[in-house]
């Protein structure tokens, strides 16, 4: 039927064939490293060293994961990562939304200077060393608070980009909502809490995702500010230590060396590393597809300039 209705044309056929093949290539290149790691994490460590593991385990085992979670270090680090992600995200999203509400109000007398103060932070930073001294002077070295407060890449309490995204979203809401509530005597804070905040759910989900990803993936602040307290170590930092120890092959006194010796349990540094990589990435990979619609439109909002 179709060939009767539409005349077969060579150009679209060739183009789409090529295009789908290319997309297949993109998908394979994107997924392969991850699937390979997943397979290694479920494969017996000793068996993996024989090579030839691609995207499917040969000798299934859960021992790598058991070893990872039996090591108190990784287990504790996992919960520190969870804590910093949850606390950091909740505090940041609430305060960012509140700030975005104030600069969305046209009548706010400090709207322009406040906006400028935040936007400028997108393009300059005082630098690592002055920031280090500040954190030190505030007695925040080796505290959990530094994870919430240090304005590093991706992490930190506020990102000007997120602020602009929420601001633009609030402005797209009908002004009459705020006006009528104010006529009824509601204060700005009341308007924000009971009207704006509930309406902003989609955009707040977006910036919550961005903030949570930044917090969860952060390793640098642990490395610089909290590396001398093991109980503050995060999952990414544990992974980083493990990676640098296996790469430089100078034995890490903890996991990799015990693992290297442990032929009985069939665990190797590589298989441990694969298992931690999966543990460290899966939480976010389970969340982002469900928020796709929101963050796609959120990114577009952020592109709108003042």
């Amino acid at each position, binding site marked *: 039927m179709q060939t009767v209705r539409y005349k077969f044309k060579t150009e679209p056929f060739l183009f789409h064939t090529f295009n789908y093949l290319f997309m297949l290539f993109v*998908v394979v290149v*994107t997924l392969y490293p991850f699937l390979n790691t997943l397979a290694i994490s479920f494969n017996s460590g000793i068996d993996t060293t024989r090579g030839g593991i691609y995207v499917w385990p040969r000798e299934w085992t859960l021992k790598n994961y058991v070893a990872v979670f039996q090591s108190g270090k990784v287990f504790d680090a996992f919960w520190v990562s969870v804590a910093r992600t949850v606390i950091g995200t909740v505090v940041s999203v609430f*305060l960012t939304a509140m700030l975005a509400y104030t600069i969305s109000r046209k009548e706010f007398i400090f709207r322009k200077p406040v906006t400028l103060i935040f936007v400028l932070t997108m393009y300059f930073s005082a630098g690592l060393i002055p920031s280090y001294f500040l954190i030190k002077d505030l007695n925040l070295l080796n505290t959990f608070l530094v994870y919430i407060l240090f304005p590093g890449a991706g992490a930190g*309490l506020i990102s000007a980009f997120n602020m602009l995204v929420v601001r633009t979203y609030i402005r797209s809401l009908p002004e009459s909502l705020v006006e009528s509530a104010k006529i009824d005597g509601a204060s700005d804070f009341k308007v924000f809490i009971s009207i704006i905040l509930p309406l902003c759910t989609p955009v707040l989900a977006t910036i919550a995702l961005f903030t949570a990803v930044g917090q969860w993936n952060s390793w640098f602040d642990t490395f610089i500010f909290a590396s001398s307290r093991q109980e503050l170590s995060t999952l990414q930092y544990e992974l980083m230590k493990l990676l640098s120890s296996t790469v430089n092959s100078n034995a890490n006194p903890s996991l990799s060396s015990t693992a290297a010796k442990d032929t009985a349990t069939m665990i190797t540094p590589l298989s441990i590393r694969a298992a931690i990589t999966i543990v460290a990435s899966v939480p976010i990979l389970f969340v982002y597809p469900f928020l796709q619609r929101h963050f796609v439109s959120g990114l577009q909002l952020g592109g709108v300039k003042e």
Partner: protein
Amino acid sequence: MTRQTVPKMNIAPQPARRTESFWSRVIRQRQLIFMSFPMLLYVLVFAYAPIWGWLMAFQSYKPGFSITNQTWVGLDQFRFLFLDEGFTRVLRNTIAMSLISLILGFVTAIGLALLMNEIKKTGIKRLIQTISYLPHFLSWVIVTGLVSMALSTEGGIINDVLMKLHIIKEPILWLGEGKYFWGIVGMTNVWKEVGWNTIIYLAAIASVDPSLYEAAEVDGAGRFRKIWNVTLPGIRPVIVILLIMNVGWILNGGGFDIQYFLGNGQVLDWSETIDIFVLKYGLRIGNYSLGVAAGIFKTVVSIVLLYCANTIAKRLGEERLI
């Protein structure tokens, strides 16, 4: 926006608003002020207050004494920095890796967006997009781990494939030779961010006026002509804005984490960037003043570049950032 201003112009001016003094407005808006206060305080303390530390760059800073109680050396730190052969090399690496990442990133993201846009089956398109965003959500620790595994000489997939295709005879030690390093940084950035970067271009493509395509079709334009003559000019404002934003990041060297994790002794001459230089001098060697000077240099150049790009865009009548 216009909702409020239009009636104001037609109806008699509202004297209460007009003559209201600054302080009475402050008092009336105290709630808005209080609401912006927590974040304002935060950003002033954590982003602006450390600028005080820039004074260290004009001193020979010794730990243990307060910043006001140090020897002043004027511009000596900067002079030392620019005469230092090491720093010149660091600067070269930074700019080279930035430019490679910038150009590769733009070309691949725009190209992928154009090709994705040609997929008409929404379900498949959505699936491909979702998959393409995946690497963006992985941390740099993980990504560099995956990259070093893929490039490994013992069963790394890249060497495996190249050998099976008979392009190379022996595994290449990708991370052990300086000449490959910049390319690896560029490709790693592409792998991580290309899908994510298509989001903004796909949105821009979707907002191109469909009647332009119809007109082009009437004129007999084929698929590629339409892309070249309609789509690309249509998304030009977005491309320009993103270019301006990225110019401001040129001294970031295409990211800090990649060089930090993938760089090693063998490729040091090619992998060291300003950020790593600052880390090394500042926190490892303890020459804080030199580290701060390099940091100041980076910030100042970034802002100047951003300003220039913005001005040029303005002159050319393009969309601009500020």
